[in-house]
């Protein structure tokens, strides 16, 4: 990318940590396209979002109180209840195990989507790599959840469908549909965030009075909605994987 388009934090990372990352990437066989600037905006802002979330939750942790909950605690209790309620609706039995992963996913994606609204910052979810990483982690998570609760044999057997003679038809269909899930998760999140920014910028190039702000507001709404949908789909996939047909 052009050096002027670099985020200021990316430039700091490239100045101080550029060498170690280039040698690490070369060691694992994927050398960067521009060895002087191996850090890219999306990974740097992703690390920044992680740091912000960790600081926020460390601060929250220190202020937890049973008798006199502060505003921050009440807010995050509401978020937790929301995520826990969705998990209870989606997963028949034992939903509390999955709330931690799914809640983290929700807050991480929400913060990453919203940081792009601040002028000067760019959403990491605008690059296809970040939603792809999240979708692949969801893919492995729900298969692992299914394997853990049902055992390897029973979990693989349920791909064959309700009746054994349907298996030659069901297995390829289930295989393709399971592969399509991370693809659709990726494209949905990436395209929504990318299109939101593009539309705002397009209207900003036409006029700077009022109209781009409307589209930016829509982008904020879509950011919340897409984080919620990503979390909800992860829960639905987990629910499908751990479902017992009693």
């Amino acid at each position: 990318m052009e050096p002027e388009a670099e985020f200021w934090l990316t430039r700091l990372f490239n100045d101080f940590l550029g060498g170690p990352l280039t040698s690490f990437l070369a060691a694992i066989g994927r050398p960067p396209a521009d060895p002087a600037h191996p850090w890219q905006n999306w990974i740097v802002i992703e690390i920044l979002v992680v740091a912000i979330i960790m600081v926020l939750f460390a601060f929250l942790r220190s202020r937890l109180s049973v008798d006199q909950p502060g505003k921050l605690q009440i807010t995050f209790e509401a978020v937790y209840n929301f995520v826990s309620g969705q998990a209870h609706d989606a997963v028949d039995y034992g939903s509390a195990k999955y709330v931690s992963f799914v809640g983290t996913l929700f807050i991480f994606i929400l913060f990453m989507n919203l940081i792009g609204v601040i002028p000067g910052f760019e959403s990491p979810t605008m690059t296809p790599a970040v939603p792809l990483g999240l979708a692949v982690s969801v893919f492995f998570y729900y298969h692992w959840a299914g394997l853990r609760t049902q055992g390897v044999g029973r979990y693989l057997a349920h791909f064959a469908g309700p009746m054994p003679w349907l298996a030659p038809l069901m297995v390829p269909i289930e295989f393709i549909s399971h592969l399509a899930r991370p693809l659709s998760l990726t494209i949905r999140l990436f395209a929504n965030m990318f299109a939101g920014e593009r539309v705002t910028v397009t209207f900003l190039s036409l006029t700077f009075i009022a109209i781009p702000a409307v589209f930016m507001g829509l982008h904020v709404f879509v950011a919340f909605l897409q984080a919620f949908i990503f979390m909800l789909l992860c829960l639905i996939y987990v629910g499908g994987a751990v479902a017992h047909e009693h």
Partner: protein
Amino acid sequence: MTRKIIFLAIAFLLLASPIFAQTPGGGTNLADLGRPFAYIAMGIASGLCGIGQGKAVASAAEAMARNPGAQGGIRFALILGLVLIESLALYTLVITYVAK
């Protein structure tokens, strides 16, 4: 009447014949030739997505009117359905950008 309309349509199309006098410009890429199709595809995808979402909202509004007690569940199903339909139009948008 039909023959008049067909004649008029062909006449209008032939009205654009000066375009054949164009000097070949700076080399059209093979990939660039696909761009108008990408735009039409995006238009079709958005239109059909609009129809689908319209049906979803219409039935959700009617269900909420019939059964005000189930508003929470209906609203949830509505939002989920709208987002999934929206993502279909967005797949086409991604292909529009990929097919440069």
